[in-house]
């Protein structure tokens, strides 16, 4: 498997109309880390994630993948596996077709044969521990199951990074705990550079190798969970992080 990607964010800014969602921010995400973008709503964390995934164009700044400028890459070219807050499963396709979608969308040169696609989809279904649901439709799944399918779908394209927008948002506490561990396991298994957005600090602290605390379009502090807890550097971090 290829080395997980190293991400550099250089002075990325984003304006929507006259509102600045992101003031110029810079950040280095080392290869293979599990990073949490933590902050309240309006902090710009989702915007930053979407810019990484290519779903928004930054107003200024660059993004570098393994040292080369990726700002101009299209969404399709980035190979960033993206898990949406609402999961965005294709409601008219079965779970199997959802997961297979990215592989089938490849140009014929790089597209695996049908049998190979089936093999990979089933392998992913095993990975997310839902081996028998391939023929079901998203509407027939529970919230937790949908989240895992969305994850499998993103992993199917052999992404070089994994981006998750509030992956545990709409789920109840017990399911959240299980899925948190699931995400950690997958990260450890795949070794992918993973960035997830959350407003829940317990989640961020428990899961992430690196926590990026954001507020109002700026990065307040970056560091390991213990460091953020014990050495808050700005008033916002002090207030936001309850020990």
């Amino acid at each position, binding site marked *: 498997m290829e080395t997980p990607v190293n991400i550099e964010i250089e002075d990325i800014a984003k304006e929507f109309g006259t509102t600045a969602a992101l003031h110029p921010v810079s950040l280095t995400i080392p290869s293979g880390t599990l990073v949490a973008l933590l902050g309240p709503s309006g902090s710009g964390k989702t915007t930053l994630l979407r810019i990484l995934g290519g*779903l928004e*164009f930054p107003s200024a700044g660059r993004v570098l993948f393994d040292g080369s400028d990726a700002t101009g890459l299209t969404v399709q070219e980035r190979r960033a596996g993206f898990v949406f807050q609402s999961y965005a499963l294709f409601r008219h396709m079965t779970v199997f077709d959802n997961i297979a979608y990215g592989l089938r969308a490849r140009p014929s040169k790089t597209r695996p044969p049908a049998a190979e696609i089936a093999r990979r989809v089933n392998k992913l279904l095993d990975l997310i521990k839902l081996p028998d649901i391939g023929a079901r439709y998203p509407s027939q799944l529970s919230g937790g199951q949908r989240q895992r399918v969305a994850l499998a779908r993103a992993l199917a394209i052999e992404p070089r990074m994994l981006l998750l927008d509030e992956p545990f948002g709409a789920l109840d506490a017990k399911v959240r705990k299980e899925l948190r561990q699931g995400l950690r396991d997958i990260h450890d298994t795949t070794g992918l550079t993973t960035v997830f957005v959350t407003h829940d600090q317990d989640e961020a602290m428990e899961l992430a190798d690196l926590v990026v605390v954001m507020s109002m379009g700026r990065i307040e502090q970056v560091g390991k969970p213990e460091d953020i807890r014990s050495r808050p550097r700005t008033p916002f971090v002090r207030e936001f992080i309850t020990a």
Partner: protein
Amino acid sequence: MIARPFTLRNPTPMPGWGLSFGIMVTMLSVIVLIPMAVLLWRGFIGFGAAEMWEVVNRPRVWSALELSFRAALVASLFNLVFGVLLAWVLVRYRFPGKRLIDAAVDLPFALPTAVAGIALTAIYAPNGALGAPIGEAFGIRVAYTELGIWIALIFVGLPFVVRTVQPVIEEIDRETEEASATLGASRLRTLTHVVLPMLAPAALTGFALALARSVGEYGSVIFIAGNLPNVTEIAPLLIVIRLEEFDYDGAVAIAIAMLTISFALLLAINLIQIWSRRRMGAV
């Protein structure tokens, strides 16, 4: 950072902007905007506002305009009342054949106006299945009089109020009605003071749609109307007559008069809706 020139939108990675916007604007312009502009240009600049007024300000034209708008108003008011009633019956009551009736309400949408026109005339003509008995019993003629026009327009506008009000009735929280009952209100009072106000905005919208449709209606009406100038001649017919006489300016003038009055009416209704929404608050 590059200063971006004025753009209609902030670019996003979503594909298809150029194509979709292009098709939309092109077809909108070619089929709707430019033809409308040509009409207005022909009327106001080619002919002139004063000249148009002169054409319109004649008894026959006023009769036609009054008839079209009056008949549309009467029919739409009937549809307002009956439409709310019918919507209520369809949503709240169960009876055999209800699904069929519900589907049938859309018939005026689906049925060609000419078919409706000759069918209604056949029924309400003095020798028709309903026209005859009505004539005998009440001495009233339906077809070839303004009454016939009312009936045709009621037919045409029927679905509008029903279809806009039905979803609102479906979403009424029964607890509001129950609350009213617990406070001692009779069922009738609950309906008139609690339920009806909730339906008012949707009913008004339906009324406006029915009105807009009825004012310009042609096919359903000209068969049953009789088309006597100053008596049962609707405005669209007058436009057709002017065209047949190659009096394009006259046709344009009447058309613009119709559009102006419709616009004013719809504006008034829109304002009433805004007012009623403000009074009601969010439902």
